[in-house]
């Protein structure tokens, strides 16, 4: 009896270990660090949601890859905008369909806009609040009436997604009837492929929570084969060139990197820490790319408090903050020291000519310069003035502002787990400021707490945080316009400058691009001179992909992710050494499985023996 049982187990296990026949077709495997949280576009908020969702929905207009030029997508052309024109009619192409065969129509776009307004979906409201009405004149014509023309009309409203009205409209009544309609809408969780129709290049197949999301190629995708031609002759032809895409959840970079090396995945869809690079470079099948991110890390002052309200003080601090050191040490040169609020990666909008406090100078010079800046105002004095002796700084002591000792103040820095780079920068800044005798302490603080103190209560001295940015720098207005000085307003430093306000207002209204760029440059100059933020660095998107499975990857701002729709399978040569190696590693896993199986058998045998 006992033996029979064991034999049965062994038989089943052996049978189950037989090689699995996978479905035919090419699969592209992507590693993700976290799983999507929802497939509901009204609820989706983080990158992991959008990494999947973005391929199901096509906007009216879109950025093309690499240079982010705005090109028509479902719309037939990009409308010309000007600040005095408030009504727009957009024509749609008529060959686009949803994956269930229903045509993609103007109603689908109008429904989205109207739902955003009706259900007050915060995430999208900024693109729709200035839109008075949106309606479908017919199946392929959309009509917008705006209350004012903002740049976000094109770079927000027209980039909004459509939603399949034939699926969502029947549900609306249900949402509206709920106690809280918004909540009801957001709690709706489509997970079945039937609920998830797509008009983009991919179709949702299944989602195993915590493990993976699987999609397949949309055979009816209208834009397949679309070619982008660039000035330098590069051509990109829209794919996808594979049949399936699997988003595998890896959770730790360690695991993802091993997966990449083993060939389980073709691309890690997040920026990996530079610490991994040397290891990865040793693998000939892996390519590491380094692209600037459209983001910045900064330190902000509370300009409503003394002495931070003093421009000279802020300039002196900016001089002391050795951003070159941060770039070299903290970032290990993966990333760039930043002097303007717009990161250099956003080439079109980045002003190279802004004031660069302390740029390229050793710490000794920086200290002297900072002291100089402060002393020129006549407001600062020291008990012991900082000096430089024999090439080393003798730190100052007892710094006074307007005759009174400056009280100890803190820099709120995010904790190391959130971002070790920012935490480390905070520590460094503390040490640098101490050089001129400032009584400062870096206080690692939970991210949420910083946000609440900085944005909500405005109870802080300085803090270190970061922003992910948009291509169009309308954030220059949001972050520094005096109208944003309110609870949870975006002007966290409480910077106020009427001239700046006027120019910033200009930036967000519709108008010729050249004018806007000039305005953005001017705004950057203001900010660089008056330093409400000290921009610290622009991080880099260090990414890795396998070069032996797919080719045709291209670099762009924020990383190579957009390549996913353009890469082509490498024609697999018979029996390359790489394939052998891969098999070997697969053998290792198999061995592990076998080991576990043996343990199970041994354990049950032992148990049975003991029972007898």
């Amino acid at each position, binding site marked *: 009896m006992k033996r029979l049982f064991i034999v049965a187990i062994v038989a089943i296990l052996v049978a189950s270990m037989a090689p*699995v026949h996978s479905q035919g077709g090419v699969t592209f495997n992507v590693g993700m660090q976290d799983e999507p949280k929802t497939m509901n576009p009204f609820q989706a908020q983080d990158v992991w949601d959008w990494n999947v969702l973005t391929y199901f929905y096509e906007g009216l207009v879109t950025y093309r890859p690499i240079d982010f030029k705005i090109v028509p997508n479902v719309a037939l052309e990009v409308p010309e905008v000007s600040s005095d024109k408030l009504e727009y009619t957009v024509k749609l192409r008529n060959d686009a369909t949803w994956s269930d065969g229903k045509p993609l129509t103007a109603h689908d776009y109008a429904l989205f806009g109207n739902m955003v307004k009706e259900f007050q979906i915060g995430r999208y409201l900024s693109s729709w609040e200035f839109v008075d009405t949106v309606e479908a004149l017919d199946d392929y014509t959309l009509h917008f009436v705006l209350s004012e023309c903002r740049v976000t009309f094109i770079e927000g409203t027209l980039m909004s997604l459509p939603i399949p009205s034939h699926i969502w409209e029947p549900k609306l009544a249900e949402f509206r009837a709920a106690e809280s309609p918004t909540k009801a809408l957001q709690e709706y969780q489509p997970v079945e492929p039937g609920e998830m129709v797509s008009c983009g290049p991919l179709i949702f197949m299944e989602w195993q929570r*915590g*493990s993976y999301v699987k999609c397949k190629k949309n055979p009816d995708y209208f834009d397949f084969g679309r070619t982008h031609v660039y000035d330098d002759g590069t051509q990109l032809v829209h794919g996808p060139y594979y049949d399936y895409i*699997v988003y595998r959840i890896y959770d*730790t970079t360690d695991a993802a990197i091993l997966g990449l090396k083993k060939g389980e995945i073709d691309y890690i869809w997040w920026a990996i820490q530079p610490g991994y690079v040397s290891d990865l470079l040793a693998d000939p099948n892996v390519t590491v790319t380094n692209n600037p991110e459209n983001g910045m890390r900064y330190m902000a002052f509370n300009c409503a408090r003394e002495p931070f309200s003093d421009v000279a003080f802020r300039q002196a601090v900016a001089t002391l903050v050795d951003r070159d050191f941060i770039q070299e040490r903290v970032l290990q040169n993966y990333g760039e020291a930043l002097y303007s609020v717009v990161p250099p990666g956003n080439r079109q909008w980045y002003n190279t000519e802004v004031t660069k406090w302390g740029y390229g100078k050793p710490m000794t010079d920086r200290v002297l310069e900072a002291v100089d800046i402060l002393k020129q105002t006549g407001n600062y004095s020291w008990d012991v003035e900082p000096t430089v002796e024999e090439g080393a700084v003798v730190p100052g002591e007892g710094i006074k502002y307007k005759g009174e000792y400056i009280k100890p103040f803190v820099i709120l820095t995010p904790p190391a787990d959130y971002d070790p780079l920012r935490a480390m920068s905070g520590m460094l800044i503390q040490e640098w400021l101490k050089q001129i005798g400032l009584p400062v302490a870096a206080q690692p603080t939970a991210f*949420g707490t910083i946000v*609440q103190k900085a944005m909500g209560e405005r109870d802080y001295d300085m803090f270190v945080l970061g922003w992910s940015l948009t291509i169009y720098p309308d954030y220059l207005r949001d972050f520094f316009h005096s109208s944003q000085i309110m609870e949870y307003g975006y002007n966290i430093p409480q910077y106020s400058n009427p001239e700046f306000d006027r120019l910033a207002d200009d930036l967000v209204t519709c108008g010729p691009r050249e004018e806007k760029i000039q305005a953005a440059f001017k705004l950057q100059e203001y900010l660089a001179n008056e330093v409400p933020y000290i921009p610290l660095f622009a991080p880099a998107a260090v990414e890795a992909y396998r070069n032996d499975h797919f080719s045709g990857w291209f670099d762009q701002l924020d990383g190579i992710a957009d390549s996913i729709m353009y890469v082509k399978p490498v024609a697999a040569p018979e029996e390359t050494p790489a394939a052998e190696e891969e098999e070997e590693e697969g053998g290792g*896993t198999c061995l*592990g499985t076998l*080991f576990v199986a043996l343990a199970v058998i041994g354990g049950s045998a032992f148990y049975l023996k003991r029972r007898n």
Partner: protein
Amino acid sequence: MSMQKYIVKRVVQIFLTLIIIMTIMFILFRMMPGDPTAFMLDTRMTPEHKAIIRAQFGLDKPIWYQYLLYLKNFFRGNFGRSFYYARPVYDLVMEKLPATLLLWTGSYVISYSLGITLGKIIAWRRGGKLEFGSTLFGLFFYCMPIFWVGLIMLWIFSYKFGLFPLGGLKGPDVWSDPTSSIWLKALDVLHHVALPLSVLTLAFFAGSMLVMRTSMLETLREDYIMTARAKGLPEKTIRDRHAARNAMLPVVTAFAIAVAGSVGGGVLTETTFSYPGLGKLIVDATLTFDYPLAQASFLFIALMVLVANLVADILYAYLDPRIVY
């Protein structure tokens, strides 16, 4: 008092403890700074929109109202919605619970069986090489930071030799293939669980082994062991039936005391192996300020500890007929 009555009494106690824990949780999270909407920041979100979001989460209501709402929802089995996952917390917790139960109970069962067996043997044959070896080995793992052991194991077994997966619970290769049999899936899960389970087992077994050893040594001095020997019973019967059986009682007590502390090991292990269980959930939820989720996962972990205590008590009563309730 009968056993049933005792269990009912204990369940009521557990319930009260849970309410106290919940209240503490509530106070902690509401009194402390930290804005849960922080993670939804978007450069194009206006302050008004933020207010709307806050209202959606009920954060604009007075504290006492939130507390009553919270208790009411608790009694209804509604733990609220996760800020981060935007799904009912209950569903999330229930998704992770089986994985955690598998890992934690698995490691407790294995490590305590191992510890009891080893402790029994080394106490019986005092001073042998086995005693020295297993005590040293066990103590090292007992004192090592568990996540560090986990990292080393990952390094050796997963990274260098590729014998085990680096994390997770289900391999996409197996699970995304519709032809996979249930056995293959079970094997895949075991394959994923093997390393974290070993780490936890290594970390835990020394505790039970040392308690068992001490307790066994004391038991061996008891007169009924002399009686058993005088009766001419075989050594193994004396060791297992008479000595070990009695010596296990303090181990059960020690388990009840240790379990609250040792779930920390479970949490760290889950995090190290990115094992999708409650322990990882609570860490992630905490780091993202997802208080409903952090609270609920904490509550469930606490509940597991309380249930483990109850089980220990019942087991004790089963093992020791002298216990009267």
